[in-house]
């Protein structure tokens, strides 16, 4: 029995008739790097919103580090050590990169100078050191993804919920970003990432959950889930697994 940091049980929410997340249970062990994958519209981001407190579930519970945090407001969860990033990057556009990261650092550091200094250290960890004085609005997509990561990291999170930090990046940028994410995990931060880029998932994740139409359809190591017929069908359509097998045979 491993040490569980995030324990999600039977989590469900419906928007009108749409069951966006239905009966999802998963457990992320402390210090692991796990991934949540699934086709577009599967409910991955909604699940993140439920876990981090932006949405209140209709049913089910979320426990973080042994404490029940179901429906607790996001800012309280951030204080407790769980921070999410956003798929659609949300920089504080009028402020510089340094000031952006300092907002995160201020969670535990009251002094302005100390928070700005901490921002510099965090920026170095994600490879933003050379762009500290740029307005966040002037960053490239890759830069904004790094900023999103840096801000979350500056809150001294123990669990990072990363929502597609690699989406929209070109292959070179992805190759640069993967070591950054791995570096986080190596420093002891637990990471649960939503990701579409399979190269990254195969490379990084120790454990993968697959979500389709709001339900978990598979879990296991990256190699296991990518062989799973249910997963292949969820991505490529009904009957694909069968056709692939016949084509191969």
């Amino acid at each position, binding site marked *: 029995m491993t040490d569980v940091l995030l324990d999600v049980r039977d989590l469900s929410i419906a928007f009108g008739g749409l069951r966006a997340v239905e009966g999802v249970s998963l457990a992320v062990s402390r210090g692991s790097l796990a991934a949540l994958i699934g086709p577009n519209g599967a409910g991955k981001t909604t699940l993140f919103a439920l876990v981090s407190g932006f949405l209140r579930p209709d049913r089910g519970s979320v426990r973080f580090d042994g404490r029940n945090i179901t429906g607790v407001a*996001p800012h309280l969860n951030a204080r407790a050590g769980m921070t999410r990033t956003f798929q659609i990057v949300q920089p504080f556009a009028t402020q510089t990169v340094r000031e952006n990261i300092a907002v995160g650092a201020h969670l535990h550091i009251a002094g302005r100078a100390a928070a700005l200094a901490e921002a510099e250290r965090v920026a170095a960890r994600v490879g933003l050191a050379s762009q500290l004085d740029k307005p966040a609005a002037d960053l490239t997509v890759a830069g904004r993804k790094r900023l999103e990561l840096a801000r979350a990291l500056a809150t001294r999170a123990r669990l990072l919920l990363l929502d597609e930090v690699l989406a929209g990046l070109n292959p070179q940028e992805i190759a640069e970003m993967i070591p950054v994410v791995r570096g986080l995990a190596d420093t002891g931060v637990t990471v649960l990432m939503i990701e579409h880029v399979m190269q990254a998932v195969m490379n990084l994740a120790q454990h993968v959950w697959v979500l389709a139409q709001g339900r978990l359809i598979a879990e296991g190591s990256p190699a296991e889930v990518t062989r799973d017929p249910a997963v292949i069908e969820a991505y490529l359509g009904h009957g694909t697994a069968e056709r692939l097998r016949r084509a191969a045979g």
Partner: protein
Amino acid sequence: MKDVAAIALFVLVIGAAAVALDSGVALTFMMMALYATLLAQAWNLLGGFGGQFSFGHALFFGSGAYVQAIAQLSGGLNAWLALALAVGSAALVALGVGALAFRYGLKGSYFALVTLAFAEVFRIVALSLPFTGGGVGLMLPLRASAANLQFGSPRGYVLLLLAFVTLALMVTAWLRHSRFGARLQAIRDNEDAARALGIAPFQVKLAACVLSGAFMGAAGAFYAQAFQYIDPALAFGPTTSVEALLGAIVGGMGTLWGPVLGALSLHLLSEATRNLFGALPGINMVIYGSVLVLIVMFMPRGIAGLGLSVRAFWGRQGAGDD
């Protein structure tokens, strides 16, 4: 540090001018310009740094003005004590209205409408209550003496307003270099991202609203003392709300000197139109409205933003040279 030095210089120059100048016209001009500045600065604390656009800041202004008058007329309080009470009451009104609006997550135009509605409610209530004097308004007896916070010459009011404006400048500078300010600006730029980073939007916005309300209350108390007369339309009517937000928007929201520049420019403009068009009623508001449209369309960062772009332009030119 640079901000503090600039503020010190500002205080020295204006203070020296107020002491040295003897012309009543010049002193009155300074008084009204500083008054407009104080309104714009107060609005800027919540609107410029917090991104919460109030259309009803007269609510806090009027509360301050009425408490200032009633505390003296009915309570028999000294004017300086009344001033403290006026500022406190305006802050309290801001606390109540802010708590209601932010508790229900009102943002953008909804927040603007709710503040406007509250100001109107207060105006109508002030029209019908006995102790506000109803539509007749309240008249403060003229007893010019410093102990009574009334001055024979505008110079005294200039110095009083300069003290308020300086305090507002220092609070603004603090917002630029503090954790609270960083949080407030984070909420303005993106509330969801701010929440994800551990910021409690309700508390931060409410605190900014109270600060903003307190300075509006101070402006209202000054108004009651300087003109010795208030009525519901003067206190809670839209003119003051518009003046406050216009000064900050024209000058540059979320900046230290923007509201000062904006208020001064608008005051100069309104003096100029008065000379050009005489006492054509309402012409000020027509001009203000046109200026607002032009600024929002062509200079969304205001006059202070214009200065920044010029500096950035020269910076680029300089970089291109070497």
